[in-house]
């Protein structure tokens, strides 16, 4: 059962078309991410859901109820703002209890709820603090507690981690995920960090220029990007020109620049279209450098550059018949010495990981 359903959402700012026909269902209890480059309309979509922006057309349904004409304060959603928006003139406890004011709870009960919420985000005993005396990570937790205390159906988070340093960000990623499982509330996270989206989400909607380019679970998104642009945006992908040679019942053969003939399964083809594929994509880990044995198929290549990461090495390898080198990632084992720049080597591939694009 979906908690949010967006139907044909269009949003114009004057002449600027910010959202172009967004259709999307978000399931109850799901950790859902909106991922896309800067300016693609992620924040706009989030604000449409929250009720801060009117749609130009289309409907937003939350919990089975059409939200047309329902103002932000009446919607069963709460938001964690990018700047956290902690009220500077109120204490931590007053911030957290802010939304409960109109519930007119008895004092003791209110205090108990506030303490519970603070405990949940790991800020027990911080209630009396002045809110401007908090660190970035603490402000973020206060913002979370303040939104979660109202037990919204959906929690909206606009790049909540972008203001934190790397270490803090990684810590909060796991913590957010844990919190979401604990409370079971639907989270919608806006981020432009693909790694963050992959780590945290159940499903990810990748947006470009006001449109959802692909909506899928992280693994699916990484392994089967629908378009070249999605493949490029999520992780690293090598693109090679290719021509379809032959279509059989159980396998399709391609002539791929640099690799030669490659056989793949029909399932690997994009749905619908059946012929004239011209580009295939390969993740760096789908290619490998041959250290021992003689694989069924291998081609010669020359290492033109490399980046050493400790656990991994990323090689730039020039294959014959291609204009630019491909990126290959290799785990560093003692049995596999890191190659020098300029080294001649053999490159093999995993045909099952090959992604075929419709253009």
């Amino acid at each position, binding site marked *: 059962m979906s908690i949010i359903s967006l139907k044909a959402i269009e949003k114009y700012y004057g002449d600027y078309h910010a959202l172009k026909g967004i259709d999307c269902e978000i399931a109850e209890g799901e950790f859902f991410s909106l991922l896309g480059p800067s300016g693609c309309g992620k924040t706009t979509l989030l604000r449409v859901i*929250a009720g801060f922006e009117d749609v130009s057309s289309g409907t937003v349904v939350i919990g089975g109820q059409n939200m047309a004409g329902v103002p932000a*304060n009446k919607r069963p959603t709460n*938001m964690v703002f990018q700047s956290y*928006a902690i*009220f500077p003139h109120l204490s931590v406890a007053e911030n957290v209890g802010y939304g409960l*004011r109109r519930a007119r709870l008895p004092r003791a009960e209110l205090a108990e709820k506030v303490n519970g919420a603070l405990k949940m985000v790991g800020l027990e005993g911080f209630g009396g603090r002045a809110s401007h005396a908090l660190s970035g990570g603490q402000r973020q937790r206060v913002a979370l507690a303040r939104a979660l205390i109202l037990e919204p159906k959906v929690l909206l988070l606009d790049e909540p981690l972008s203001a934190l340093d790397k270490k803090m960000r990684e810590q909060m990623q796991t913590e957010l995920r844990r919190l979401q499982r604990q409370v079971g509330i639907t989270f919608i996270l806006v981020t432009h960090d693909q790694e963050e989206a992959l780590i945290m989400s159940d499903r990810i909607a990748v947006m470009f220029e006001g449109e959802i380019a692909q909506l899928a679970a992280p693994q699916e998104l990484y392994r089967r990007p629908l378009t070249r642009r999605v493949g490029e945006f999520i992780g690293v992908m090598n693109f090679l020109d290719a021509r379809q040679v032959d279509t059989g019942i159980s396998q399709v053969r391609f002539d791929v620049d640099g690799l030669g003939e490659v056989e793949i399964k029909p399932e690997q083809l994009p749905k619908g279209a059946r012929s004239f594929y011209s580009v295939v994509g390969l993740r760096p880990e789908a290619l490998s450098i041959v250290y021992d044995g003689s694989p069924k198929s291998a081609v010669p290549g020359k290492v033109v550059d490399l980046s050493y990461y400790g656990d991994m090495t990323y090689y730039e390898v020039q294959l014959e018949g291609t204009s630019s080198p491909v990126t290959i990632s290799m785990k560093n084992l003692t049995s596999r010495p890191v190659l020098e720049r300029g080294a001649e080597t053999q490159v093999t591939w995993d045909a099952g990981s090959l992604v075929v694009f419709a253009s």
Partner: protein
Amino acid sequence: MKGGWLRIYAIGYLVFLYLPVVLLPMFAFNEGTVIAFPLKGFTTEWFVQLAGIEALHGALLNSVFIALVTASLSVIFGICAARASTRFRFPFKGPIMGAIMVPLVLPEIIVAVSLLVVVVQVLDLPLSAWTVIAGHTLICTPFAIAILSSAFQGLDQSLEEAAVDLGETRWGAFKNIILPLVSPGIVASFLICFTISLDEFIIAFFLTGAEPTLPVYIWSQLRFPTKIPAVMALGTLMLVASLIILSVAEYYRRRGVERVGGKDSGGFL
């Protein structure tokens, strides 16, 4: 010492600035009835005399009334305009805000004359405290807007959205979040407008009715040499009062800057 010559110049300049200010209390406590050197003995007689001048008390009350109403109106108009300009985008924003700030760059006599023409010649109304208030509100509002705009500008817009998100109505968010956060700015602009109105002469002289304002009263006294020592005493008291009011205003302005977590850029205006 850094800035050697500049420092000497700066001190000389301060002497120039303070010359009249220092003379004011000197003559106020001076026994001699002529405003000239050398000074005679010390006396508080002139201050005592002030207590007995009925006309002065009337003028003072009148001025305080005018200043209070002017400051209230200017702050209300200021809040409307400053909030509109910092929070909303609307058509003709530039021209509208420009027009509202015009009194700041208009010679005061023009404001005075134009209001006089309308009130006396066109509407044929009597001059009164209210005509002075009309003029003073016109020139004070831009000051209020300037102070309040910076107060509103310092606010993160998502604070207001967060309040709405947590269940407040728009008005509730404004009342419970925005107003408390800009209240130091409101107090500061109120005090500034109050002080400007209290001291304003050029417009008041044109628009005042039978009841003079304090500066108009002082102007009338400057012609009589015997009244001048008392005027000096009065001026001294007014200076002290202004300084107290301004210190309070500055205190509130700084608190406002602190509250929204901004950096103090110092000073008024």
